[in-house]
């Protein structure tokens, strides 16, 4: 039940067609994992907290470094050396007292991933490496949890929403591994991509609009263009191929 203060706080979004108080209540009940609290995780967390997602589990094992500060907007000069999740929770806690934020300073791996995702409704992919993204994708498929992918490089970003068993998963689209290396990026790129991911999360929870499923949205900031590429489920996908085939959404 939303309090009168919450109704006032969220008034402008409750006004959105199809949203209403019911939509806000759904957001309040939602439990969302944000995997990563860096370039993508910072803006994703800020906007999901502001929107009133009830519970957010923020997972990141890293500490804040000076070179993070051009893009990881939850962290500042005074946070260097701190756990990113501690730094993030401190700021997020001041944004919205109605949101519960669980900081988890762990490296996501095969041993802990089942425990980390258990009981949660959605996963936001805000990682910075492909192996962990694949781990999250597999866990999302196995636990039937919608997965909201985003990635950046330089002035380019990509976004895709994955509904397990229904739409193409990350492994249907990407099959290989690329070497882990320092990548170029400026803060506005993950900000745009994370806001698109957060938009998808809100739409999914509230149940409005059309999702970016079985489509890879490519944001090309250099040429200021968005391109939608059609992807499809791979019947031989090593993550989701075993699931009964349903139509692409």
């Amino acid at each position: 039940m939303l309090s009168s203060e919450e109704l006032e706080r969220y008034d402008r979004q409750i006004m959105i067609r199809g949203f209403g108080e019911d939509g806000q209540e759904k957001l309040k009940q939602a439990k969302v994992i944000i995997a990563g609290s860096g370039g993508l995780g910072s803006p994703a967390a800020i906007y999901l907290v502001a929107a009133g997602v009830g519970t957010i589990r923020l997972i990141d094992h890293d500490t804040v470094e000076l070179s993070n500060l051009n893009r990881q907007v939850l962290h500042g000069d005074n946070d260097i050396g701190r756990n990113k999740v501690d730094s993030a929770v401190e700021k997020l806690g001041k944004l919205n007292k109605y949101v519960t934020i669980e900081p988890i300073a762990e490296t996501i791996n095969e041993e802990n991933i089942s425990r980390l995702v258990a009981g949660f409704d959605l996963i936001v992919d805000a990682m910075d490496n492909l192996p962990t993204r694949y781990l999250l994708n597999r866990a999302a498929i196995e636990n039937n949890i919608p997965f909201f992918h985003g990635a950046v490089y330089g002035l380019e970003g990509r976004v895709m929403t994955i509904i397990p068993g229904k739409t193409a998963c990350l492994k249907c689209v990407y099959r290989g591994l690329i070497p882990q290396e320092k990548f170029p990026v400026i803060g506005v790129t993950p900000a745009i991509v994370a806001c698109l991911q957060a938009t998808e999360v809100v739409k999914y929870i509230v149940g409005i609009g059309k999702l970016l499923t079985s489509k890879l949205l490519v944001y090309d900031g250099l040429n200021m263009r968005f391109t939608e590429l059609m992807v499809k489920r791979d019947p031989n996908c090593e993550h989701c191929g075993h699931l009964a085939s349903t139509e692409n959404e």
Partner: protein
Amino acid sequence: MSIRVNIHPYLYHLTNNQEVVEVDGITVGECLKDLIKQFPDIKQVLFDQNGKFINYVNIYINMEDAFPNELAKSVKDGDELHILPIIMGG
């Protein structure tokens, strides 16, 4: 036959900064062969040392994923290809 190949921004330096390259071919494989003929340096990001197509690059034909057997897929005059390497930054 004229097929337009959209080059990914990372790869512009391999195509003399050309964003789109016109190629000939009736399959994706033939189109890539023609692309490499025009810009030999791009081969290194498309094929490994054994000549196998690299699996961290995706090919889209008219905006649709060409996987699997990308190289054997037919193309026709006016088709458009996109070459898209994986990105993973966050």
